């Protein structure tokens, strides 16, 4: 299959339009176009239930015009992309980096794991919540300890807030 037809098969017109929006922000050369890869992968991931399949990455690579292997380098490098791994309806990331760790993040993770009955990197049996694998710093040290739920930052977390937030997820 040619590269163009891979992109055409997988990407909708609307997805192409949204990727074009990001492409327009960078120079129109090989490196510039490649800069849009992260935004493009997010678009595909958001549209596909929070996870990426191989064909999505291939389609994005073909559409942007970058080597397929380079697109997979990006998709496998960042922990925010879930390539070839099932995810639940909600994603919960705990930061365990230095500031959060000093403020008791490890106990919060242990609590969440015990409460949900899964380890980090796993999804609850009902498909409700994925406890995302251990993260690097999530850039909210001033609010440590913290977690991200479906892209929203929750800072200065006491244990009770965790109950409240996790129980509120359908």
């Amino acid at each position, binding site marked *: 299959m*040619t590269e163009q037809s891979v992109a055409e098969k997988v990407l909708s017109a609307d997805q192409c339009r949204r990727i074009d929006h990001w492409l327009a922000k960078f120079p129109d050369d090989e490196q510039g176009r490649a800069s849009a890869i992260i935004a493009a992968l997010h678009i595909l991931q958001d549209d596909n239930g929070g996870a990426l399949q*191989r064909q999505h990455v*291939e389609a994005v690579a073909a559409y942007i015009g970058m*080597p*397929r*292997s*380079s697109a*997979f*380098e990006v998709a*496998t*490098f960042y922990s925010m992309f879930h390539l070839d791994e099932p995810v639940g309806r909600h994603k919960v990331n705990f930061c365990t980096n230095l500031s959060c760790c000093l403020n008791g993040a490890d106990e919060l993770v242990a609590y969440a794991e015990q409460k949900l009955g899964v380890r980090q990197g796993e999804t609850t049996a009902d498909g409700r919540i994925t406890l995302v694998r251990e993260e690097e710093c999530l850039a909210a040290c001033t609010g440590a300890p913290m977690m991200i739920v479906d892209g929203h930052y929750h800072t200065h977390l006491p244990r009770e807030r965790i109950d409240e937030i996790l129980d509120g997820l359908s």
Partner: protein
Amino acid sequence: MSANEETVTIEVDGSAVEARKGEMLIQATDRAGIHIPRFCYHKHLPVVANCRMCLVEIEKAPKPMPACATPVAEGMKVATTSEHALKAQRGVMEFLLINHPLDCPICDQGGECELQDVAMGFGRGISRFTEGKRVVADEDLGPLVGTQMTRCIHCTRCVRFLDTVAGQKELGGMFRGEHMEIATYVEEGINSELSGNVIDLCPVGALTNKPFAFRARPWELLSFPAVSPHDGVGSNLSLHTLRGQIMRVVPRENQAINETWIADRDRYGVEGLKAEDRLQYPMVKREGQWHEVPWETALNRAAEGLKGVVERHGAAELGGLLAPSATLEELYLSARLLRGLGSGNVDHRLREGDTSDQAHAPLVPWLGQSIAELEEASAVLLVGSYARHEQPLINHRLRKAALAGTPIMALNPRRFEWNLPLAVEEAVAADQWVQRLGGVAQAVAEQTGGRLPDSLAAVAGPIDGTAREIARRLTEERTAAVLIGNMATSHPQAATLRALAGFIAEQSGGRLGVLPEAANTVGGWLAGAVPHREEGGHPAAAAGKAAHEMVAQGLKGYFLLNVEPERDLWNPQAARTALGEAEQVVALTVFADDTLREVADVLLPMGAFGESAGTFVNAEGRWQSFRGVGEPPADARPGWRVLRALGTVLALDGFAYNDIAEIYGELAGRCQERCPEPLSYPQEVLGGTAIAGDGLSLAGNVPIYAGDPLVRRSEPLQRTLIAGRLEVRLAPATVERLGLAGGTERVRVRGAAGSVELPWVADAAVPPETAWIPAGLAGRAALGGPFGKVAVEAL
């Protein structure tokens, strides 16, 4: 201060070293012969400085600096062996070995491993690391490159090579940090025609030569210089032998030719040496049965056979078909042998069908420039060449030029999967090719105010937008290159294509060049292996028949030098018939397949590549000699020795050579006044046959691993995805018109002389109304030559 504005003087370990402004420290120290350990740095790859092995101490810098990524500066003082530097290097070495298995005794790289060597020189005696090491699952990268990814130290040379040199980035650094793996992720292997180079680049035993695995240890091997027999580049190789057996091939650096790279067929061609149908003993056919006989019997029988044809039917009924991959000495002696018997029917242009311009052809059809000069061309027009598969390392030069901004243009009978950006790629049906190239010639004439000679103007088509575009780019500067490829050379109007290409090159002030198909296509012209000229280009007393004429007209006797009738000849169908009906066929050959056994009467086994000394003349006219280093099997002998003996048995004059150097000396002496000159062909239509008739236009090139008998027998190469399948490729519009979609997977392809059943594939790269079928493959013979007209019918 340095005296020269372009250089700076630095001090390395107390001695002054001249360095070019802006270059990296390691380049200056390498040139000065000062060794700095490294893994990720390679002079032909982009610098990434990720292995950190080349750390050195630089005065006034608080931390050690990587020599590969530190530009030189006037007065810089560098210490490569100070305590500070050595400590840094030892620290890096310890980190690199943390996850590297200590399994050198069972590692194929053991003994030629950069990690092993550097660890011995710069590491500690013992490991302080007692924790568990990580393990990485191996990936199957295809039949050529073996993997042991646990050994990988992430230098990324392989990734950078495939990206920047091979232009097909199939490997990447997947995952991150502790989990990083060099992989394809999609597990479809690496499929570049240059993939084997990652083996040489890999500083550890992670990527290894798969077919060679566990065959020998490097310290047991002897290394001999050699030259690749598979294309006109003449890549420099080292042959490694174990007790007289050729075990493997690695590149030998020659910046003017192959830099540090070789193509996969240069490396893995030798896997065909031990094929089952390798001819071991001289054989003669008696009453339809083959018998192994002593050399003397076979030579007498061969001599009687050849002489008998001459006596009964006249010398004009004897012809020699000589492989263009044979050595200069073999070609020269074969041509002399036939001429000695009175026959001028000698040719090595086996895949050509139009030689009507031969009388006015240049001394040799060469590249018209050096291989390195291709990079300097202002624009390149390829006429009938998929250079990537025809001459991978010439294509590499074109790719470098293209990336530097040179417009590369192609006028081919279909589009191909290039690894370089083409400024113009026009797919032209083979029966329209002359007209379309004529249109380009007219456009060039329009730009330059020149005039296309009448007979060419009569066949030229109108000027279209593409022609104007090509003409504009070619005439922008006066240093363009117009290169004639294998497909144009094998076209039934090849001479007219050459004439037009010559006009285009001349008018645009550029150089005309031919991409010679085989290792000695150029050499054959010098050795007198053409019917109208003897060695050194001296005119023959009477011109004999060209290869395609010998086949088409049918002779009573043939002498074959390493030729496989159904694979190597322009019209395999006619060749099969002509050889089958001949009274005598004497074949001096490396292999003997069923067809050859059927048509031949005497089979004489010869040494293959690596087993026989000889000389190849490459595309740029460079003579490169090599020794025979492997032992031919059983009774096989180097071709030049057999020819010498045959010449002696035939009582021909001047075959009493003592050694091959005498043959070389004699031939070189007769060629010496004549060096390659700028190419020119007569600018008129002299002959050739236009492709006419009803049906689809048949076209095909010889796939990358089908060019010569040796490479065809390399099983690992044949298993690659690019080896080329026998199938018919049709434009989607043609598929629709023929109503094939939804029907059977196979179609009947009917040519003038026969038909074959083939699978079909829709391919938008093929122009409408063209049936693209690769040439040179078994099972295609019934369709005749590579071009023509065929009917395609649903089954």
